[in-house]
């Protein structure tokens, strides 16, 4: 486990005059559960979109799964799964139709996709609802389908952008149980962005982003020790100087 799943050097992004991400140096190890923590607007989603080749960097470089995000976009996208902050499902199609659509976009042959979809639906307890339109599902179920969609092509790296935004506590718990099981099973690298500090506690390492800058980086224990505090919440406060967002999503 010495190769880096993600390697960013001086990565930055501007939107007009707004510096969304300043100069990020970051290495995520293969198999790591990495948390990107920060208040709303800190640059978390921008960072994920840069890694996913949905944005072109304004400066710096990044390699994801060993591929350059600028020159080898297709190879990067082949190696990653991305669960967006807001659902990307077609509400008019059924669960199965959505997953089959994704399987085709990822060029999975039907004979590979079909059994894999069945397994995921069973794992995510969606079998009985498989032929229901997505618009009839609860938020928690939709999220589960989003995640199933994100791992259908068996990526090496999974990005979860604020995955629990808008979910009730029960749905959150079952989502984390699923992610844990996935990681135990496949050694998947997971990069999580969140502004809920407690969600970053189980991460191997955490980076705190604030206003487009890396404010702190380390294991949750290291960060707490360095700041001389007991909770990640206090670490977060110490580094960003402002309290956590109270609102969901965003």
């Amino acid at each position: 486990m010495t190769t880096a799943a993600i390697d960013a050097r001086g990565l930055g992004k501007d939107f007009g005059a707004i510096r969304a991400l300043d100069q990020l140096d970051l290495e995520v190890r293969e198999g790591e559960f990495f948390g990107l923590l920060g208040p709303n607007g800190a640059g978390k989603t921008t960072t994920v979109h840069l890694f996913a080749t949905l944005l072109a960097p304004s400066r710096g470089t990044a390699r994801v799964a060993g591929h350059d995000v600028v020159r080898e976009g297709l190879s990067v996208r082949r190696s990653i799964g991305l669960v967006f902050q807001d659902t990307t499902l077609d509400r008019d199609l059924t669960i199965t139709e959505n997953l089959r659509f994704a399987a085709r976009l990822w060029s999975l042959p039907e004979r590979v996709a079909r059994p894999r979809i069945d397994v995921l639906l069973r794992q995510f307890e969606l079998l009985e609802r498989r032929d229901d339109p997505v618009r009839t599902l609860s938020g928690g179920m939709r999220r589960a389908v989003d995640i199933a969609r994100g791992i259908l092509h068996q990526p090496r790296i999974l990005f979860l952008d604020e995955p629990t935004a808008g979910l009730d506590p029960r749905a959150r718990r079952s989502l984390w149980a699923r992610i844990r099981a996935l990681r135990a099973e496949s050694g998947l690298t997971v990069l999580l962005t969140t502004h809920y500090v407690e969600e970053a506690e189980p991460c191997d390492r955490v980076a705190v982003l604030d206003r487009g800058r890396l404010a702190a980086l380390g294991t949750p224990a290291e960060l707490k020790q360095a700041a001389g505090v007991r909770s990640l919440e206090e670490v977060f406060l110490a580094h960003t100087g402002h309290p956590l967002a109270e609102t969901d999503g965003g």
Partner: protein
Amino acid sequence: MSARAVYGIVAREFVRFLRQRGRVLASIGRPFVWLVFAGAGFAAVFTGRNQIDYRVYMAPGLLGMVVMFGSLLAALSTVTDREAGVLRMVLVAPIRRSTIALGKTLGATLLGTAQALVVAGLLLPVVHLRPTLAGALLGLVAVVLSGLALGALGLVLAASIRSIENFAGVMNFVIFPMLFLSGALYPVRHLGVVLRAVAYANPLAYGVDLLKHALLGAWAEAGYGGELPVLLDCVALAVFAIVGLALAASLLGREGGVTRTALRGRP
């Protein structure tokens, strides 16, 4: 180029269309509304009455209109995909932007062609127009090529316009001039130089002209058939389709296609 991804995009467009009953019925009923209302009015002032029934003259234009509504408006799905987030999922897939543009355009072509075939099956018997086999085949070519050109054009508009409200407004602005300057309702050659020049920048004009070659061959002598060479019509439509596809692919790939929506409301 991933054939499976293209197939996935086309299949989804078709399934979505079939689930929208109102849209299916409207697309089939619309040309008949035009046939009855516009047909009655225009027939009264139409000077070629002795040579050709106006409703027969209108038939190729109405089929062209069906393709226009079918293929051009299919691009609406790209706008709704952007709003619903589906477009982001498509953009993060390991496929080229040109593959997405091709899939969307072929989907639009399929929708336009399917609607035109259904309408042709109902409309042609009603106006007592029986095309020859060669005419029917040329008609199919005309419908498919028009679908490609208009589908690509629709996608260019959809890729450059961000909101549904804007898209609807622009479409209304595009559709009616396009229809009136297509030769669907009256021959383009009667127009002044300027309008005629505009007509020849209109992909639908070539599609309708090709459909007239296909269906009104018997009235060509009297001056109601196609006005331009068949080959020119085909080449013009192909050029519109290819240029449109290239433009749409680059617009879809343009930064902000995904992310500006993703970042909306965020600093």
